[in-house]
C-alpha cells in the first residue's frame, strides 16, 4: 500500500473519502492499519487547509470518492506503478515519433509570475538549459534562458531568467588566450545547470559535460545553431505568432500524430506496459490469467497434438508399406511442430529402413537433443550408428566406423552390438594389417602369372559351371541341391581363409549341399579359390548373415514401437519360409501372420516379387540395398560370421527370428515345397495361388525357380569375381541359361515330389540342429 499516495488523495478529498474508505475496505487488513494513522493525520492541520481552499469542488465528488474507496486496494497498490518511471529523455524528440506540442502553460495562459515561480520550483541540477548570451564579463558570461533542453519542457522565453556561466566552467578552445573570447553576445548556448539558488532565483550553469547526469553526458554543450533548438520551443514560437491555433489543431496536423507507431512509442515514454495491461476491473487483473490460457501456449499444445496425430497416420501408412505417404505425414508433422520428438524418431526410423542412415542419425540426434530421455530415440540411434559403422567398415573407413561404434557406446554403454562390433573391428584391423603384408608378398609373386591367365581362368570357370548344370539336370537332382552347390562354391571361393566360414555357410545356407554333388562343386570352386584367395583380402568385410542379423536387431527394436521397418523383410521371409520349411514351422509362422495386420500387405508384396521374376532374393536384396557391397562379399572375417551364428543360435527364442534363420537355408531352395505338399496349410496355398495368378502354376513355378537360381548364381559369381569387365560376359552366359531353362520348363512332375522329400529331410536336420 502506497501510504504517501493515499495521504495525498485523502488530503485532497477530505474526511468524506476517509469514512467511505473505512466502510469499503473494512476487510482489507492493509487498509485497516493504515487508515488509523491516516485518520490521525487527516484530523490534524492538513484537513482544514484543503477543505477551505476547495470547498466548491466537493460537490460532484461523491461518486468519485465512492469509486476511489471501492478500488482503493488496486489504486494504491504498490504494484500499480509505471514500470519504467522515467524513460530516458535523451532522445531529442523526433518530429516523426509523436506530436511534439508547445508547452501546456502557453495554452492555459498562465501569468508569468506563476510560471517563474514554478520554474524555480521544478528546475533541477543537471537539467539542460538553452539561452542567449546577454553580456560577457571577465568572470564569465550571463545568458538569458529561452528554453529547456531536458527534464521539464517549459515555456520560459518571456520570463527573463538569467543564468551565469562562470569562467571556470567555460572550456578553453585554444592553448592560450581568454576562453571567453570565443563567445559573442547573442550566441545561443546550451549549458547544464550547475547550481540553483531558488530563494534568490539565481542560476549557475556550466559548459562541461560533467555537470550533466550520466544518461545525458553525450550531449554537446556550448554554442548551438538555431536549428538545434528543441522542437517544442520552435512550435511554441510558432504558436506565439499565431495564438489562435488550438492544441487540437496543432496536434492533429503534426506528422507524428498519424504515425502508426505513436501509441507504442508514447507508452514506452510513459512507462506503461502493454504486455501486462493495467485494468481496474477485478475480472481483468492480468496477474490472474494463467500462462496456459494464452494463445501461444494453446497453439503450441494444439500443434503438438496435431503433429502427433500426423505421426500416427504416418506410422499407419508405414505399416502398409506406403513409405512415401508416411514420409509426407512425418514431414507435415515436423512442419506443424518443428521439435516434435515422435515425428523425428519416426522419420529417423523410416530413413533407417530406407537405408539413409546418415539422415536417420540426424533425426535421432535432433530428437535426443529435444528430449534427452527419449528411450526409443536413444535406442534407435545406437542401432543406426552401429549399422552405419558397419557400412563404413565395408567401405574400409575403419576409423570412421570406429567413431560411430564409440558414439553408440557413449550413448548406451550397455549396448552389446556396438561393443561387439567395436571389438571385432579392432581385431579385424589388426588382422588385416598382417594380411596386407602377406598379400603384398604374394601379389609380387603372382602378378605376372595372373595377368596372363585371368581371362583363361574365367572361361574355365564358366565351362565348369555349365558342365555342372548339365549334369545336374541330367541326374534330376533337385535345383535346391544344385543351388546349394553354387552357394557352396561361392562361399568357398569367397572364404578368405577357410573352413570355418565354409562350414558356416553350409549350415546356414545350404544344408543340402551335403549331397554328393558337393564335392565336385567344391573342388572346382576351391581351385578357383586358391588362385584368387589373396586377391580379395583387402576388401572390407561384411557378410550377408551379419548384416541380416543387424537388420533384424534393428527391426525388432523398431517393431516394438511402430512395428514398421521390418515389414518388407518379414514379408519376404514369410513368403519364402512356408515353402522352404515344413509344416512344423508353418503354424507359428502363420500364427504370427494372422495376428499381424500386415498380412495382406505380405501377399501384395509376394505378388509383386513373383510377377517380377528378377526380383532378387532377400539375400541379394540386402546386398543391393547396401550400396554395391558386392565386392565385400568375397571378403569375410569368419569370426564375425561365427559370432553372429553363435549368438543367433543362443538367442533365437523369438519365433520370428527362428524362421529368419530357417529362411536362410531356404533362400536357395524354396521350391522344395509345392502346393501339392500335404503339410502345406491351405491358407498358404491360397496365398501362393493368388500371386501365381492365372498362369500355369507348376510350370511357372519351375521356370521361376530356375531363373531365380541362375540369377542368384550369377549374382554370387559376380560377387566372387569382382572383375568388372567380366560381368557382362557372365550375364551373357546366364541369360543364355535363362532362356535354356525357359525352354526346358517342362520338368518331370515327380521333381516336385523330390523337392518335398528334400524339404522334409532338411527340416529334420534343422530340428536336430536346433536341438
Amino acid at each position, binding site marked *: 500500500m502506497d501510504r504517501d*499516495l493515499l495521504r*495525498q*488523495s485523502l488530503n*485532497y478529498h477530505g474526511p468524506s473519502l476517509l469514512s467511505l474508505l473505512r466502510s469499503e475496505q473494512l476487510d482489507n487488513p492493509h487498509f485497516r492499519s493504515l487508515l488509523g494513522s491516516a485518520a490521525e493525520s487527516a484530523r490534524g492541520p492538513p484537513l482544514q487547509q484543503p477543505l477551505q481552499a476547495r470547498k466548491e469542488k466537493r460537490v460532484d*465528488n461523491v*461518486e*468519485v470518492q465512492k*469509486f476511489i474507496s*471501492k478500488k482503493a486496494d488496486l*489504486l494504491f497498490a504498490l504494484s*500499480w*506503478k*509505471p514500470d519504467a*518511471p522515467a524513460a530516458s529523455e535523451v532522445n531529442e524528440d523526433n518530429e516523426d515519433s*509523436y*506530436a511534439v*506540442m508547445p*508547452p*501546456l502553460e502557453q495554452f*492555459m*495562459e*498562465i*501569468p508569468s509570475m*506563476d510560471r517563474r515561480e*514554478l520554474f524555480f*520550483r521544478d528546475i533541477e541540477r543537471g537539467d539542460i538549459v538553452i539561452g542567449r548570451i546577454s553580456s560577457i564579463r571577465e568572470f564569465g558570461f550571463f545568458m538569458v534562458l529561452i528554453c529547456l533542453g531536458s527534464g*521539464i*519542457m*517549459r515555456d520560459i522565453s518571456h520570463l527573463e531568467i538569467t543564468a551565469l556561466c562562470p569562467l571556470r566552467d567555460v572550456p578553453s578552445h585554444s592553448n592560450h588566450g581568454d576562453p571567453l573570447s570565443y563567445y559573442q553576445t547573442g550566441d545561443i548556448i546550451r549549458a547544464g545547470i550547475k547550481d540553483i539558488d531558488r530563494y534568490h532565483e539565481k542560476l549557475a550553469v556550466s559548459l562541461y559535460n560533467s555537470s550533466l547526469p550520466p544518461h545525458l553526458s553525450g550531449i554537446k554543450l556550448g554554442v548551438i545553431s538555431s536549428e538545434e533548438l528543441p522542437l517544442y520551443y520552435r512550435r511554441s514560437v510558432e504558436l506565439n505568432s499565431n495564438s489562435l491555433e488550438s*492544441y*487540437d489543431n496543432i*496536434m492533429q496536423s503534426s506528422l507524428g*500524430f498519424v504515425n502508426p507507431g*505513436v*501509441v507504442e512509442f*508514447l*507508452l514506452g*515514454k*510513459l*512507462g*506503461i506496459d*502493454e504486455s501486462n*495491461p*493495467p*485494468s*481496474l*476491473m*477485478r*475480472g*481483468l487483473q*492480468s496477474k490472474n*490469467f494463467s500462462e496456459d*490460457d494464452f*494463445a501461444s501456449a*494453446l*497453439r503450441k*499444445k*494444439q500443434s503438438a*497434438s*496435431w503433429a502427433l496425430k500426423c505421426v500416427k497416420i504416418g506410422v499407419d501408412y508405414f505399416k502398409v508399406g506406403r513409405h512415401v505417404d508416411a514420409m509426407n505425414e512425418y514431414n507435415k508433422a515436423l512442419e506443424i511442430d518443428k521439435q516434435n520428438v515422435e515425428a523425428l524418431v519416426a522419420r529417423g526410423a523410416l530413413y533407417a529402413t530406407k537405408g539413409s542412415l546418415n539422415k536417420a542419425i540426424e533425426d535421432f540426434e535432433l530428437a535426443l537433443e529435444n528430449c534427452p530421455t527419449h528411450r526409443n530415440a536413444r535406442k534407435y540411434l545406437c542401432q543406426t550408428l552401429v549399422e552405419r559403422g558397419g557400412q563404413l567398415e565395408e567401405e574400409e573407413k575403419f576409423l570412421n566406423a570406429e567413431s560411430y561404434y564409440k558414439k553408440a557406446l557413449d550413448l548406451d554403454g550397455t549396448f552389446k552390438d556396438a561393443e561387439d562390433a567395436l571389438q571385432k573391428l579392432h581385431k579385424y584391423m589388426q588382422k588385416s594389417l598382417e594380411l596386407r603384408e602377406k598379400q603384398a608378398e604374394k601379389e609380387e609373386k603372382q602378378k605376372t602369372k595372373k595377368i596372363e591367365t585371368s581371362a583363361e581362368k574365367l572361361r574355365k570357370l564358366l565351362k565348369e559351371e555349365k558342365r555342372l548344370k548339365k549334369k545336374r539336370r541330367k541326374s534330376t537332382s533337385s535345383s535346391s541341391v544344385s543351388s546349394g552347390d553354387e552357394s557352396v562354391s561361392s562361399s568357398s571361393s569367397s572364404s578368405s581363409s577357410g573352413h570355418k566360414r565354409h562350414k558356416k555357410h553350409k549350415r546356414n545356407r545350404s544344408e543340402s549341399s551335403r549331397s554328393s554333388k558337393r564335392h565336385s562343386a567344391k573342388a572346382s570352386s576351391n581351385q578357383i579359390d586358391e588362385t584368387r584367395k589373396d586377391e580379395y583380402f583387402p576388401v572390407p568385410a561384411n557378410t550377408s548373415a551379419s548384416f541380416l542379423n543387424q537388420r533384424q536387431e534393428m527391426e525388432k527394436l523398431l517393431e516394438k514401437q511402430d512395428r514398421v521397418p521390418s515389414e518388407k523383410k518379414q514379408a519376404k521371409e514369410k513368403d519364402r519360409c512356408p515353402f522352404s520349411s515344413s509344416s512344423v514351422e508353418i503354424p507359428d509362422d502363420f500364427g504370427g501372420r494372422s495376428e499381424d495386420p500386415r498380412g495382406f500387405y505380405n501377399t501384395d508384396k509376394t505378388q509383386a516379387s513373383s510377377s517380377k521374376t528378377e526380383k532378387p532374393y532377400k539375400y541379394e536384396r540386402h546386398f543391393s540395398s547396401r550400396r554395391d557391397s558386392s565386392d565385400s562379399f568375397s571378403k569375410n572375417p569368419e569370426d564375425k560370421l561365427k559370432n553372429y551364428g553363435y549368438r543367433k543360435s543362443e538367442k533365437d527364442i523369438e519365433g520370428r527370428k527362428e524362421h529368419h534363420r530357417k529362411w536362410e537355408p531356404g533362400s536357395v531352395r524354396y521350391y522344395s515345397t509345392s502346393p501339392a505338399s500335404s503339410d502345406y496349410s491351405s491358407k498358404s496355398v491360397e496365398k501362393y495361388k493368388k500371386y501365381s495368378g492365372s498362369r500355369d502354376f507348376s510350370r511357372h513355378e519351375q521356370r521361376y525357380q530356375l531363373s531365380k537360381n541362375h540369377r542368384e548364381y550369377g549374382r554370387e559369381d559376380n560377387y566372387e569375381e569382382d572383375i568388372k569387365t567380366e560381368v557382362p560376359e557372365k550375364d551373357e552366359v546366364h541369360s543364355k541359361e535363362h532362356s535354356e531353362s525357359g525352354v526346358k520348363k517342362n520338368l518331370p512332375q515327380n521333381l516336385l515330389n523330390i523337392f518335398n522329400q528334400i524339404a522334409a529331410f532338411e527340416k529334420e536336420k534343422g530340428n536336430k540342429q536346433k536341438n
Partner: protein
Amino acid sequence: MAGGSGASGRGPMEGIGLDCYGGGDAARGALGWAAPEARVHFRVTRFIMEAGVKLGMQSIPIATACTIYHKFFCEINLDAYDPYLIAMSSLYLAGKVEEQHLRTRDIINVSNRYFHPGSEPLELDSRFWVLRDSIVQCELLVLRVLRFQVSFQHPHKYLLHYLISLKNWLNRYSWQRTPISVTAWALLRDSYHGGLCLRFRAQHIAVAVLHLALQVYGVEVPAEAEAEKPWWQVFSDDLTKPTIDNIVCNLIQIYTMDTEIP
C-alpha cells in the same frame, strides 16, 4: 448441433458458435434482469478484453474490437445473434483493421479455453473448421451491418499526448510518485465495457479519464486557478465541465457492474 448448422448453412449465422460454448445460455438468462443488455454487453466485452490480452493484442485493437461489438448491437437486437460469436468475429476483424492480424485458430483456442476452463485445445477436425467458418462468415455480416465503416478514432492517442503535455507541466517528482498515466490508461481500457466510445468524442473521453485519474490521486494541475483556460479546455475546445462529469459518471457506472457480475 452447432457444427451441423454451420456445415450446412453458410448463410445464416444464428445460433452457431454459442451452443458449442457454455456461456451462451447464461448470457441469455441474464436478459430477464434489470438493465439486462448492459450486463450482457459488460460480460461479453470483458470476454473480448480477456481474450484480447491472451491473444497478445494491444490496447487499440482491443478497443476497436469492443467498438465494433458495441456498434453492431446498436444496430441489431441482442436476441438476433449470439453475442459471443459477434465478439469473436469482432476480435478477428479488429485485428485486420488495426494491422495486428490474428489467426482464427488462436481466437478459437482462447475462446474455447475461456468457456471451458482447463479444457484441452480443440482438435483440428471438421468441427473446428465449422467454428472457424462461422467466425469468418460472421465477420462478413458484421462488416455489412456496420456498412464497412470499421475504422475508428480512439481516445488512446489523444490521451497519451495529453499525458506528455501534463507531465511537463507537473513537478517531476509528483509525476513520478503518482501513477497517473497507468491509471488513466486502465480507465480508458475499462471504459470499453460500455458504449461510451460511441456516445462521446475521443478527445472528451481522453480528457475525462485523465481528469478522473488526477482526481483519484488528488493531483492538481499547477496554477490552474490562475490560468485563463482550464487544462481540460486546452485539450479540447468544445469540452465543458458537465460533459466531463457525465463521462466520469458513466465510467464509474460501468465499474459498479464489475462487482455485481461475477
